[in-house]
């Protein structure tokens, strides 16, 4: 691991932490535009986080340490994920320590702790949210992994950096399997980021909540961290998508730091488009009943597997 690599690693992490709330803000703004509403400020998420950090924390009675540590763990997991996914450069020392499978593992870690913490208080909503979250997760997680596998079968590697290197910096080839993977990935990331049609981040009716129901008891700094982590999650997923399907412009190991810096604006641009697309999808589709979710995610899973099969069949 070179010093340059280390630098790009830190830079990328910093950018992820910084840009994540902005991405959320951007998506909300686009959605507001699409739905002819007055758009909130682009910086609203930052304000929310600052405000929450200033507040007094309210902790529910009978909360165990799991409840209090959860936000930190989730946040930490998301940071690690952000450090793995190559958004600017592929020269990431930490990515050698944890590959795509480990990335999914990190997401699982976050999910499990969220669910446990939600059950910790012992309210109906907490456990309901936890159940639904795990329910969504048990289909979304394998689907995501399958998507990643498709890519790694193409590139013959499970480490994201290598995948990106292969996809971005070798001769351009058309991978039909990636088409399946792309669709599947979109569906998964909608579900995983608590977006319509699976969940509704803006709802205020507990019965329809998934993600919100789990964090119902949180406040102040804990909530702030969770919101931030959620933003990071969205950011990570977007970056994964970009890395797999639009890897152009991500600096390779030997490009040096200029390329890395040069990749930054490109990333912002790609994210802006991605966010807009997300908002569009959310606007166009309606939230589905919770038990339609398995069909939705099952389809995603099957598409991903299909991608894998196609890849095997056509010998990539």
């Amino acid at each position: 691991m070179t010093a340059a690599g280390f630098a790009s690693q830190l830079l990328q992490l910093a950018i992820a932490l910084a840009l994540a709330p902005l991405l959320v803000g951007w998506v909300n703004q686009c959605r507001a535009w699409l739905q002819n509403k007055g758009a909130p400020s682009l910086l609203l998420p930052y304000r929310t986080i600052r405000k929450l950090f200033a507040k007094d924390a309210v902790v529910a009675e009978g909360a165990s340490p799991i409840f209090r540590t959860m936000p930190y763990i989730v946040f930490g997991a998301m940071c690690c994920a952000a450090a793995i996914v190559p958004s600017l450069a592929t020269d990431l020392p930490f990515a050698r320590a944890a590959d795509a499978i480990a990335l999914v593992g990190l997401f699982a870690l976050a999910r499990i702790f969220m669910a446990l913490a939600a059950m910790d208080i012992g309210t109906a909503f907490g456990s309901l949210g936890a159940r639904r979250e795990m329910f969504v997760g048990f289909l979304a997680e394998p689907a995501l992994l399958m998507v990643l596998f498709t890519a790694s079968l193409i590139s013959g590697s499970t480490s994201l950096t290598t995948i990106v290197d292969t996809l971005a910096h070798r001769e351009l080839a058309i991978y039909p399997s990636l088409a399946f993977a792309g669709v599947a990935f979109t569906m998964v990331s909608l579900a995983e980021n608590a977006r319509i049609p699976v969940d509704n981040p803006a709802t205020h009716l507990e019965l329809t909540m998934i993600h919100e129901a789990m964090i119902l008891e949180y406040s102040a700094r804990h909530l702030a961290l969770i919101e931030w982590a959620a933003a990071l999650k969205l950011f990570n997923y977007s970056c994964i998508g970009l890395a797999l399907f639009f890897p152009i412009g991500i600096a390779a190991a030997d490009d040096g730091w200029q390329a890395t810096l040069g990749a930054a604006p490109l990333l912002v641009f790609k994210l802006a488009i991605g966010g807009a697309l997300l908002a569009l999808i959310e606007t166009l589709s309606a939230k589905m009943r919770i038990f339609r979710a398995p069909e939705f995610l099952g389809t995603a899973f099957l598409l991903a597997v299909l991608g894998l099969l196609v890849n095997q069949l056509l010998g990539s």
Partner: protein
Amino acid sequence: MIPTPLQLVIAAIAAWLAIGALGLLRPRDLRFVSRLLFPAGAAVALGLAAIAAYAVGRLPQSSVLPLGLPDLPFHLRIDSLSAFFLVLLGATSTAISLFSSGYFRSSEGTAPGLVAMQYHVFLAAMALVLIADDAYVFMVAWEAMALASYFLVTTEHRLPEIRRAGLLYLVIAHVGAIAILLAFGVLQGGSGDYTFGSMRSVILPGAWSSIAFFLALTGFGAKAGILPLHVWLPEAHPAAPSPVSALMSGAMLKMAIYGLLRVAFDLLNGQLWWWGVIALTLGLVTALFGIVFAAAQSDMKRLLAYSSIENIGIIVAGIGLVILFKSYGKALLAGITLTAVLYHALNHAFYKSLLFLATGSVLHATKERSLGKLGGLIHRMPWVAWLALVGTLAIAGIPPLNGFVSEWLLLQAFLFTPSLPQTFVNMLVPIAAAALVLTAALTAYVMVKFYGVVFLGRPRESNLAYAKDAGRYERVALGLLAVGCVLLGALPVNVIAFIDPINVMLIGSSAAPRMAGSWLFLAPIDADRSSYSAPIVLVVIVGVVLLTMTIVHRLYHGRVRIAPPWDCGFPLQTPRMQDTAEGFGQPIRQVFEPFFRMQRELPTPFDSAPRYSVRVDDHWWYWIYVPIIRGAERIARAAGRIQQGRISVYLTYSFCTLLALLFFVR
């Protein structure tokens, strides 16, 4: 002279038997049993683990005891494979014996002394299975193991369902043993020599070796709980006292895996690719089935039992993959997969024992096995709860714990399956990978359910307020196993290096140097294909979390208020409003409807005391076992007519026999 490892292992077995015999001296003296015998047993187990660890990778040693049949005395042999499983056995049983010394109280069941006797005979039999080197001693040890565990399962024999469980277990075990005996009969290939040594040298014609393999798969599958021979497992494991469940799940199932490996790779020379395909499919079906059923359980020990079925399924699937690779001569991949399989066996031994022991403590503290009546125990029994959390995360396959490593390796093996001759197989591999991943994800679901319902939330029953945390011995035992899970997760490179001699032995090529080149990174093929470094991940995660905490606490003023939870404007909030176990499993039940055979009782709006109940049954029981039983009964009834009481009929029998024979003579 210094004794050889084999002699020491034999000595350990003898020591266990002796300890067991001591139990007969004062069967009702609880202090004697729990303060002397079980700790002694634990010490022996520790010694055994140490010896075996030393023996891994050393040259095989064999010796012949003047026991057994005159023409077939006991042949014993220790090689890397058996040594590895001896380590597994020794390590887990060390902790479990410690736990037992705190666990067993004088109950109205079998007397503690007898329990100690059966327990140590069980251990000794398992160890003997591992060092057996001829069919006779193997069968003797195998059945002694089944017998001892049967008696342990039926310790609380006053409860009818426990008796039923024991009977089912013993009968299926016996059927399995018959299959194994037949397998040996085929393996010996007409040489008439039943030592494993000669079986190794015999070359069987293709069809016969297939028959031998599938007989072995059936026989050992019956013990391991492979579909459709799994029915005893979810009955017997909950029925047994928790340490015994832990031992059965953690160690005994691995004996079956050992037997399968021994037959498939050591005794049979030359595997056929389609065995691998069948084992792979069978294993994955078993795994999926097991975990889906685990999700639907409302008894914590049954849940764990089904999850054991799932893990065994994964292991068997791995074995199938090894066979596939080996038959195609892909030695390196076979090595990686085999490593994954053994690694997973080791992991499962640790975390499953940990969890079963934890349920044991919960059971003791609350007298309650049904998830619907537990909850909030993390406040009452913090030790058990936190140590169980480690096990939960480990079994859920969360980095950087041990469950993740083996699954990671297995997935690598799937992913880097090179294009094999059969297209069909090539198609199979991704689907298999998908099934594996799905299983892993479901495991997370099930484990969240298990942990959340038992330890988190608010107590669902009032009497839970009096639950006490586990005692000294139990804590130590649980602690040992938890530490084991963490270490196995954090130091994969060393573990793989430790396992490698078995690759050399069974596959004929070493995988470790490639996989565990640098001490830090685990890179099966080479670094830029895939690499994983558990230590770094561990350090980074912990580091980041701590960093965040410190920063936040620096910046933050740190005022905290305790308030009642948000009730959504709904005044009355009782613990019973939390998700029950059934409720938590309900989505899975709905998605995997066809897996189950359900009887649901839904309340009508007019019920004065509305009650909801659902009973989830196993299709296989009705598909396979019931018809078999019915058929046997029908035939028996027909045969019963022979003996119909009238003497002239009997005379006619003998008269006709006589005439027939005389006719036959001429």
